[in-house]
């Protein structure tokens, strides 16, 4: 079918002029309030609003021996608060959220704690949801009995997770890459058991301050309403507090002999699980785009990446195989992984290893680079085509201190990436003699 082949050439030519037809919605900077920054994207077609409060209170601040504390500080916010009209129990909070037809969710990553509200934009409903979230952020009660119950539940879940191959692999890999950096220590039964209600109160007081918060809003509200939302959210939160000790620098994964970089974990499962990776870059690194484009080619691009081709398409060794960079405000990591029948672990690791090594050494081919840019540029509208995705973008831009026109210039930055830049960036940040490797459940034939 010649016409199909021809059409690719046409698309390759066409992508250069993409992005003019549809204006990308602008990000408005809100009035800063009590040291917090705020951002808004107005979308008027649906009567709903998504609101996010990011707090610089992620897992990396867990004290030694209390891994899991940051998770619990956020996770228990909806289990009791001191509100305007007195105490609200966990049942009252849950019922209020349900009655409003709203969602309020809490999650914690390595860097930040995130509270998200999704509400109908009608004033009375939205205001009640925002007030409730404000109380959760400023005045959680951390009831001792509820803490006891939730600690027990977390411990039970951890014990269950410790029987699962993917969890055991990930925990060991995390430790191997992060080493003594705080994120190397993941929660264990012991560290969860060590957490007290006082620890929660102290952590909350120390880190949940408005000068550590960013508010991002997407939806059916105007600038005035958005400023009001931000003020309501932060009204009762102290602006600043005692200084917080600087985190140690994440040291680059060192060059080491293979024996010291590779860990084998015996595990009685049908499949072996393999992880490989090392420290990499921040989101604001100027080489972010060469690495993004390069990783699309190596292991990020769905069914067409090199890892997918070598491991799955050519050899049938795995269902899932991938690589990614996870850059943040701080240095993030590069990670690749797959799962394969236990007696194929050695073969699969060799294929993964040689595929990554060859990519670092030689970089992509010109046609791979064109295909990657074509996908990323043509596909950009899919990254911003609803409120939730817009919020993800605004949130990332705000958190990582990126320019406010990041969404407008994104495709241009992808298009500007050259073959040499990709190769140079991969050689600069990745190295096979620095890769940490964890293999769980391999069976020797």
């Amino acid at each position, binding site marked *: 079918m010649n016409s*199909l082949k021809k059409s*690719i050439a046409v*698309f390759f030519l066409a992508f250069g002029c*993409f992005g003019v037809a549809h204006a990308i919605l602008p990000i408005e900077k809100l009035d800063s309030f009590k040291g917090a920054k705020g951002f808004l994207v107005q979308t008027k077609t649906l*009567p*709903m609003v998504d609101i996010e409060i990011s707090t610089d209170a992620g897992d990396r601040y867990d004290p030694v021996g209390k891994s899991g504390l940051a998770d619990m500080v956020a996770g228990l916010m909806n289990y009791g608060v001191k509100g305007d009209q007195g105490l609200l129990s*966990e049942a009252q*909070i*849950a*019922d209020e959220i*349900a*009655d409003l*037809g709203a969602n309020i969710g809490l999650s914690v990553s390595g860097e930040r704690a995130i509270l998200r509200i*999704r509400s*109908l934009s009608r004033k009375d409903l939205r205001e009640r949801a925002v007030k409730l979230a404000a109380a959760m952020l400023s005045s959680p009660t951390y009831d001792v009995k509820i803490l006891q119950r939730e600690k*027990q*539940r977390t*411990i*039970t*879940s951890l*014990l269950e997770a*410790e*029987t699962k*191959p993917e969890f*055991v692999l990930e*925990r*060991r890999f995390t*430790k191997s890459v992060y080493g003594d950096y705080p994120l190397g*220590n993941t929660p*264990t*039964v012991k560290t969860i058991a060590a957490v007290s209600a006082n620890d929660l109160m102290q952590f909350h007081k120390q880190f949940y301050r408005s000068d550590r918060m960013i508010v991002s809003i997407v939806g059916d509200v105007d600038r005035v309403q958005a400023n009001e939302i931000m003020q309501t959210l932060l009204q009762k939160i102290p602006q600043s507090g005692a200084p917080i000790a600087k985190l140690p620098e994440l040291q680059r994964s060192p060059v080491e002999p293979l024996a010291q970089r590779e860990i084998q974990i*015996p*595990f*009685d*499962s*049908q*499949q072996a699980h393999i992880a490989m990776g090392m420290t990499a870059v921040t989101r604001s690194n100027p080489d972010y785009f060469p690495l993004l484009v390069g990783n699309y080619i190596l292991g990020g*691009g*769905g*069914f*067409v990446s090199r890892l997918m*081709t070598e491991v*799955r*398409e050519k*050899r*049938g060794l*795995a*269902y899932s195989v991938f690589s990614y960079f996870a850059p943040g405000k701080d240095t993030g990591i590069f990670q690749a992984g797959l*799962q*394969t029948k236990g007696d194929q672990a050695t073969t699969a690791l060799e294929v993964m290893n040689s595929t990554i090594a060859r990519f670092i050494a030689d970089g992509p081919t010109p046609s791979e680079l064109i295909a990657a840019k*074509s*996908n990323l*540029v*043509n*596909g*950009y*509208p*899919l990254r911003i*085509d*609803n409120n939730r995705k817009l919020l993800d973008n605004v949130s990332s831009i705000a958190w990582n201190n990126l320019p406010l026109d990041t969404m407008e210039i994104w495709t241009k930055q992808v298009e500007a990436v050259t073959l040499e830049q990709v190769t140079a960036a991969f050689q600069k940040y990745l190295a096979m003699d620095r890769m940490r490797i964890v293999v769980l459940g391999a069976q020797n034939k």
Partner: protein
Amino acid sequence: MRSNLLRISFLILLFTQMSWAASGDSADTHEFTLNNGLKLIIREDHRAPTVAHMVWYRAGSMDEVNGRTGVAHVLEHMMFKGTHQVKAGEFSRLVAAVGGRENAFTSRDYTAYFQQVEKSKLDEVIRLEADRMSNLNFDDAEFLKEIQVVMEERRLRTEDNPGSLLNESLMATAYMSSPYRHPVIGWMNDLQNMKAADARDWYRSWYAPNNATVVISGDVDPRQILAVVEKYYGAIATHDLPVRKPQIEPPQKGVKQSQVKAPADSAQLSMAWKVPRLEPGKLDDPEPYALELLTAVLDGYDNARLNRKLVKQEKVINDVGVSYDMISRGPELFLISASMAKGRTVAQAQASIHKALDELKQKGILESELKRIKVRILSDQIYKRDSIFGQAMEIGTTEMAGFSWRDIDYILEKMQSITPEQVQAVAKKYLVDEGLTIAVLDPQTRKSEVSKGDR
């Protein structure tokens, strides 16, 4: 056209002020049937310049026969392995080149393929998808590699996943004759013995325009798209489909039990009752709606009954989930799944679940509980419109189960009319031992257990 959402919102005091019903579902949704029997449904949504294109085949694992379980899903994998004109792997490269996201999925009821693209690329993916509706042509070598990939998928999702093993055992125990007893991915032995010819037979049997529904949602002009769909899909010949036997499950006559021993730390309990589903043409039957609402009363929000009583108050269960889906081609189960709290037994959990259900059966539910659930259903009607892919999914699953997309609003409206008494009535009628199947995961220590707290 007026929105049903506007009308039903009058039922809920909180929502009486709503005024966002500028365009109703029927005004922006269009249905066409091509001469070859292919149904096309277009949902216009002009918020962003993107489109979701999906083709749904009414052929899922429930249409398989013994010895060939998993073939629907295997064929889904083989659909990426080449046609007469597009060589193996090329489909994905072409979709990637236009910036598309693509994948496919198989269920008991259907197999579906989709691409999401910027709107100017829609013609291209329609052409590719139409091509593989009738021109699939993979070779045996591709099959032999891909069947290994599918077995890896089964190892990943099922063999090394005790929860999946438990669910597989539950389904195979609950159903004696219904093909719902077989896992979608197929039994491992059937996969080991599957031949390329089995996949080709499946394709020739079921992949026809008269067994397919194309759903397109997003920033499109329906007239223009109809012409493109006519051009590519319209040329494909109709053929007769195999006869589908009803395979109705005989009535259950008492409690069934099954046990799975697998590596885990806590025991898990699944309790599943045979319950009715919504039948096409009988949209006024209150029971399926009442069962949906019962699901939410038990588990629809953080303070719903089971979480409040069993997890928070009695602390007998660590996590609980309730599921029921009234929209399906095959028989339905009302399923309660629970993992034990530390030191608690399956017997204790079962007793607590029974106690909570008995209380509901005897005392009924509060009007306020039901109202809370109904508000959630209403607000979800707004939230779901944020995703054009989600809208295409809802239309596709509804159509595959034998309903029309036009029924979606009626179903939601009907849901708002259900009373607490009707919810209580279905609990009394169906959550009884005659139709109950219990499956228990009995946790085993792994031979190679790593020490606790190991990192």
